[in-house]
């Protein structure tokens, strides 16, 4: 039996595959155009519009946006009442990020190095499950947990440890009638809500560190603490940075948690919400919204300079 060296094209699929084989970039272009349009026009476009708005200013008397480029709006950010908001938000975001990193590490380490089979499934479920329920439900649940009559207050009263909570609530800056009206409560809820976003990238990074590397460190005479500092931490750092990008930027932009929990002090997200809504001051809202972007750029530049991505 003889057969031709070239098989006949059977249908459209065969012919299309042939076209893509002859022009590999055609397929790439077809696949990439829709997401690039979405990302480039809709997303980056609106970001550019935002940036442009922040250079406009508002007429104090008429409340009309003046479409002239000026730095006046940015100067307004530096007014004490506005600058306080920036400092408060960045401090909170930094504290939440640090706390999340500390809380997440043991969990991520256990999941990456020890959990197998069912335990691994239980880990993923445990970390992901809170993400399945509504964000608002979780925040309101926390309001009840943290309230004076809530379970924490109740447990503290029964164990005669209410003085610990009262002590914490009398620290300057953390004052409140209960945890749910103190910045401490805001901090705790932020930590809870964003923790999965720190655990998952951390776990992925730790999973890539081969066991033999830890053994090599011990073999060469390193104590556990030295191995942690000189091997595990540098190798897990890209994951920690990835997680901190989530926790940091999510905290910077959130406007619901500080509204429901805490002492109603303004955060960047709340300021943006109020300025673009009730106050109608779009330029100042835009200027506020640019701040987190700048902070993240600075943060990533510093992380890169410090060699956080060398192990990638």
């Amino acid at each position, binding site marked *: 039996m003889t057969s031709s060296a070239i098989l006949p094209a059977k249908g459209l699929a065969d012919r299309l595959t042939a076209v893509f084989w002859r022009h590999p970039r055609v397929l790439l272009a077809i696949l990439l155009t829709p997401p690039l349009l979405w990302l480039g026009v809709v997303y980056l476009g609106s970001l550019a519009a935002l940036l442009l708005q922040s250079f406009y200013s508002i007429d104090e008397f008429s409340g009309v946006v003046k479409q002239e480029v000026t730095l006046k709006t940015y100067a307004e950010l530096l007014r004490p009442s506005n600058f306080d908001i920036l400092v408060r938000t960045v401090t909170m975001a930094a504290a939440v990020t640090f706390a999340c990193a500390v809380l997440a590490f043991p969990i991520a380490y256990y999941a990456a190095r020890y959990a197998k089979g069912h335990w691994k499934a239980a880990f993923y479920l445990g970390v992901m499950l809170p993400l399945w329920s509504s964000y608002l439900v979780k925040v309101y649940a926390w309001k009840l947990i943290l309230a004076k009559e809530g379970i924490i207050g109740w447990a503290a009263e029964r164990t005669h440890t209410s003085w610990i909570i009262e002590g914490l609530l009398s620290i300057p800056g953390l004052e409140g009638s209960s945890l749910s009206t103190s910045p401490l409560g805001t901090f705790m809820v932020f930590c809870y809500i964003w923790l999965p976003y720190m655990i998952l990238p951390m776990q992925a990074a730790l999973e890539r560190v*081969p066991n033999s590397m830890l053994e*090599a460190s011990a073999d060469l*005479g390193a*104590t556990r603490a030295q191995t942690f500092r*000189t091997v595990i931490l540098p190798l897990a750092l890209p994951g920690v940075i990835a997680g901190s990008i989530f926790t940091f930027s999510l905290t910077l932009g959130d406007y619901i948690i500080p509204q429901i929990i805490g002492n109603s002090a303004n955060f960047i997200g709340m300021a943006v919400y109020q300025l673009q809504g009730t106050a109608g001051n779009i330029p100042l809202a835009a200027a506020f919204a640019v701040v987190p972007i700048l902070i993240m750029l600075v943060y990533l530049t510093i992380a890169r300079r410090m*060699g956080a991505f060398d192990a990638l």
Partner: protein
Amino acid sequence: MTAAVEFRNVSRHFGNVKAVDDVDLTIAEGSFFAMLGPSGSGKTTCLRLISGFEKPTGGAIRIFGEDVSSTPPHLRNVNTVFQDYALFPHLNVRDNVAYGLMVKGMGRAARHAKAEEMLALVKLDAYGDRKPAQLSGGQRQRVALARALVNEPRVLLLDEPLGALDLKLREAMQDELKALQHKLGLTFVFVTHDQHEALSMADSLAVFNEGRIAQIGTPQDIYDRPATRFVADFVGSSNVLPPDLTRALGGPAEWASLRPEATRLAASGPVMGPVTALRYLGSGTRVVLELQGTEVAALVPAGQPVPAEGTTAAIAFDKGALHLMGAV
């Protein structure tokens, strides 16, 4: 002579799996000792028992006479060259080599000087500033070696260190490792599943099978006088004769081994069989006969006539070449 490493009735069980089962072992100081066996035979677990990454379920391990049962890895004066080298990707070559000195608290200048010394020893002087990812497999292997030697261990453990290298590089590294061991006078314990590597490099070796040592001895002992069928099979190239065939060829009814080099072809004999395979080796031809269902190889030196495939032949050998052994 002091024993560098001593196992007394050492076992390591993982649940029902007896990875290492009641092993007795003495490794002489300054020797090049190989642990040979198929994967899962317990050789790597034995190495990890010496380095401290595994704890024995039973028995005693002594390193230079000292019981190390309760000594963690970082306090044992032995170092390991890992199978995957386990170089730290975020450190350059110099800092990798100096790592052991850094964790001991040696100053930067002193440890870098010592690291350069070790890099010179493995002929990688100019590579200190590179990252491990920028090196070839053979170079990484040398860095791992330098890093393990920088602490001046009393025993160097090597876990299949040449497994990832190509043949030519592997042979070159075998010579270099051997030379290095002579130069330093250190005890090397080497794990491999490659019988040629074990036979050509070791002063003495242990053949592992299913968690136990099947035989321990010099390469000549193991090759010429395998203690069991398993050793003869695994160390390879020797013919393994079942009892019936041994008796038919004029020996007692026991399992026996017969080296192809000691086997000649004959026109007639008590057992005849067809030639089933020929393999030209350059220095000679390996001729395989099928005798009573068993394949028996004979080595025909270059220049002598080689029978064609399919023809019938017999074998002949000196009585002394037949080595009797246990059935296990």
